Every structure is written in structure tokens, then in C-alpha cells.
């Protein structure tokens, strides 16, 4: 479905307080634009300047009250099982972005500075949420991350470990375009474009429908709008590489083959039902998100990857 101009304007121009009243489904729709309409890197940077928000403007007092009084053990556990993947995911995508700077187009470098700043802010957003609402303590970012580690799925290390190791490959050989494509497929298509947007939808739908966690809803909706810029910038980069040499599509497919093989594993159940979801619905969401991202860059999946995608078990994480 194509968004109307007034809905696009509403997402694009709203300030932080207004985002607390914006429908998350509108923000998710806002990510997806056809290839021909992918914004330029400097347009995205301009949008960043207008949409930047201050994580310290959020007041989590009501969220803490909701966490204690309105949510029960089941919903708190399900929420943490899902949100903790983001808590760690944000740190990972912040820490793993730097080596991409060396070998990309100049305009993308400018935009990527804003992408990196966003990820640092998102890391601090989750740090604040886990301290002020969940009640974790620690001297620094890593202490709090260690506190939520027990909630994340063991399979988290699949895509995020791959990202860490591809980052290291890119650090050693930053101008290698095959590596850039593998990295962009893992980071911008899979982690940001599929995992992140799916998890955002689940937890934000829950907060909206059950009328809880207003500062979380506001900050995470703002995060989602930031991710829209990152995904669109990433898709432009992927499309540019494909325009230079269409054979790079093999790198996308090979990377997805690894990600989807890992994605078929799960070591424990996540109970979505307290948040109003089911595993089948989450899986369908993953499939839809991947198809939408690939449509943005004009790439289709061969039959074997389509079949693998249908076997994927949701890894609830993002960044």
C-alpha cells in the first residue's frame, strides 16, 4: 500500500512529543519506497538534522509505574525476551559500523556520520530504559548489557556474530566491494531491515494496544524513524553496487543463504502470546520484511532461498 502524502508528512515532520501519538504502522510503512524514489545520501542527512531527538528529553516515570503495576510476570518476561535483543543489537550496530566509512561514496560518508550518532543514541535509549524502568544497575553501558544478556536468544550470536566478523574482514580490506555487499546485506538488509523492523512492530504494537510504557513508545518510535533513514541509505548503497556490477547479487544471495541457515535454529521458546502475537505471525512478518527490502533494490530470491526463508525461526533482535 502506498502512503498518502499527508501520512508521510505526519511521520516526517513530527517532533519527539508528537511521535508518542504517531501510529507505529505508519512509521514502518514510511521505510519502504520504490527504488526510483530512494532518497539521496545528502537528502537523508538533511532529514537527520530535522528529525534528530534528544534521548534525555524522555521521562520514564510513567513507564516504571506501568512496568510494576500494569504488567504481569508473563508480559514482563515476554517483553524482555524481545526487547533485550534490541538492547544488545543497538550496541552491536554502533560498535561495528566504523570500518564501512573507508570505502564508500563521499556523500554516503556524510550520512553515515549521522547513522553512527543515531546508533549511539539508541544504545543510550535502551540503557536508560533498562535502568529506569526494568531496574538494572551498573557502572557503565556494558554492566547493564551484561544484566540483560540472560534474556536474549542464544541464536542472537548468529547474525550479530557474523556482523562482527564481517566488520573485521572489512577493517582489513575496506575497498573490497564483495565484502561491502556482504556487510550491507547482513547489516542493512537483514539486521536493520528485517529483524529490527519486525521487533519494533511487536513491542510497539503491544505498548500502543495495551496503553503502557509511553516513553518507551515515544523513544522507540523515534528510533524506528531513524532506522528508516539507515535502511533507505543502505538500500541506495546496495543498489549503487548492483548498478556498478550486477554480479554482486551473488554476494547478497550467498550472505542470505548463511543468515537463513542460521535462522532455522532456535534453542528456546519465546512466548509471544502475552504481547498479542504468535510465532507464525512473527515468521510471516519476517518474510514480508525481507521481500519488501529486496523489492527496494530490485532483487528477487531464488527458489532455494525462498524455501529457506519459510523455515526461519524468528530471532528477536535488531539494531
Amino acid at each position: 500500500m502506498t502512503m498518502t502524502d499527508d501520512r508521510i508528512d505526519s511521520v516526517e515532520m513530527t517532533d519527539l512529543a508528537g511521535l508518542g501519538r504517531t501510529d507505529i504502522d505508519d512509521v514502518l510503512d514510511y521505510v519502504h519506497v520504490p527504488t526510483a524514489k530512494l532518497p539521496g545520501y545528502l537528502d537523508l542527512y538533511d532529514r537527520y538534522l530535522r528529525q534528530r531527538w534528544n534521548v534525555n528529553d524522555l521521562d520514564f516515570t510513567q513507564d516504571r509505574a506501568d512496568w510494576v503495576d500494569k504488567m504481569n510476570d508473563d508480559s514482563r518476561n515476554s517483553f524482555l525476551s524481545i526487547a533485550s535483543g534490541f538492547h544488545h543489537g543497538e550496541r552491536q550496530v554502533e560498535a561495528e559500523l566504523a570500518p564501512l566509512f573507508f570505502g564508500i561514496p563521499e556523500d554516503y560518508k556524510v550520512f553515515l556520520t549521522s547513522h553512527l550518532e543515531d546508533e549511539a543514541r539508541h544504545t543510550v535509549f535502551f540503557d536508560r530504559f533498562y535502568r529506569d524502568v526494568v531496574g538494572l544497575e551498573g557502572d557503565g553501558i556494558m554492566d547493564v548489557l551484561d544484566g540483560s544478556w540472560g534474556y536474549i536468544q542464544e541464536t542472537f550470536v548468529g547474525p550479530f556474530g557474523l556482523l562482527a566478523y564481517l566488520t573485521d574482514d572489512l577493517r582489513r580490506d575496506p575497498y573490497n566491494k564483495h565484502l561491502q555487499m556482504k556487510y550491507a546485506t547482513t547489516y542493512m538488509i537483514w539486521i536493520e531491515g528485517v529483524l529490527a523492523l519486525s521487533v519494533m512492530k511487536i513491542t510497539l504494537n503491544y505498548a500502543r494496544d495495551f496503553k503502557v510504557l509511553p516513553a518507551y513508545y515515544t523513544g522507540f518510535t523515534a528510533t524506528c524513524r531513524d532506522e528508516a533513514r539507515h535502511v533507505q541509505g543502505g538500500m541506495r548503497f546496495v543498489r549503487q553496487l548492483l548498478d556498478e556490477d550486477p554480479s554482486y547479487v551473488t554476494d547478497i544471495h550467498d550472505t542470505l543463504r548463511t543468515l537463513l541457515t542460521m535462522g532455522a535454529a532456535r534453542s528456546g521458546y519465546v512466548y509471544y502470546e502475552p504481547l498479542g502475537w504468535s510465532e507464525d505471525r512473527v515468521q510471516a512478518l519476517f518474510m514480508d520484511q525481507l521481500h519488501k527490502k529486496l523489492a527496494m533494490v530490485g532483487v528477487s530470491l531464488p527458489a532455494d532461498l525462498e524455501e529457506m526463508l519459510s523455515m526461519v525461526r524468528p530471532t528477536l533482535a535488531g539494531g
Partner: protein
Amino acid sequence: MAGFMSTQWAQQVKAQANAWPDPERRSSKLVDFWDWIDMVKPSVTGRLALSVRDMPKGAESDTLCLDFEAGVVIDASVCRRAQAEAGAAFLLAGSYEDWMSMLGGYDVGKMVMYRKLMLEKGDTLAFFTPAFFWTELLAAIQSVPAETFEAVPA
């Protein structure tokens, strides 16, 4: 207790890896997970070398070589990294301090995610395709007791 990176320790690692998981570990995860491990096992063939970059004095060697055939360790030995690297499909390396953390119980997922062990030889996508086979292998290695050394580099 066998010394860390000794021949005896390598043989214990081989036995533990081939017997893995123990009943307690198996019951801690879904059957689906072990089915996934069984699915990827046939693709795990060739040598994995696991190396210590700054091995202290007193150790027999600095690198553990595990030779796999369809996910089974058919040979285990220790040698110097240069010797191990030539025939290895994959080589993971970490500092002695990080190895000690892992043997002391540090989470094996974090060992990968925080690059405490880095892939210094081998194709990254090929390595990650059976990713959880490797993390289970690290957990098996972690469970083998080893005598360690003063952290004074050789």
C-alpha cells in the same frame, strides 16, 4: 589434570566434543536446536585450528588442531600456529587472557560476538553457516579441565 594446549588435553577435547552434548546440556535446549546441529554436521569437514596469540612459557604448544569429518573429530593434536595454519580451513585466535576467561566459564556466545576469538583464516560466510555447531564446540572445550600457566608471554 592435563595442561592447556597439551597433547593429553587435545585428546580429552576430542572425546568431549564427540560425546557432546551431555544430558544436562541437551535438556537445556529445544530438540529443534539439536536437530539443527545434526542438519549442519555433514557440512563440517576439514581442520579447525584454535590458537593462543601470546601463549605463556611452559606450554607444550599454542594451537589446538581439530580435524573433522562430517562433524566428528577424527583427530586432535597441538602444534605451533604456523604449522597448523597451512592445513586449516578455519583458524580462530585469541589472547591467553581471553582463553582463560572462556575456560573459566565466560559465555561462548560473547566470545564470538565480542571477537574475543577472531577468525584469522577462512571464509566468514562458510564459517558462520554452521555457527551454533561452533559455539557448542567451544562449550565442549570449555568443559574440559585444563592446567593453566602464569600469564608471562613466551
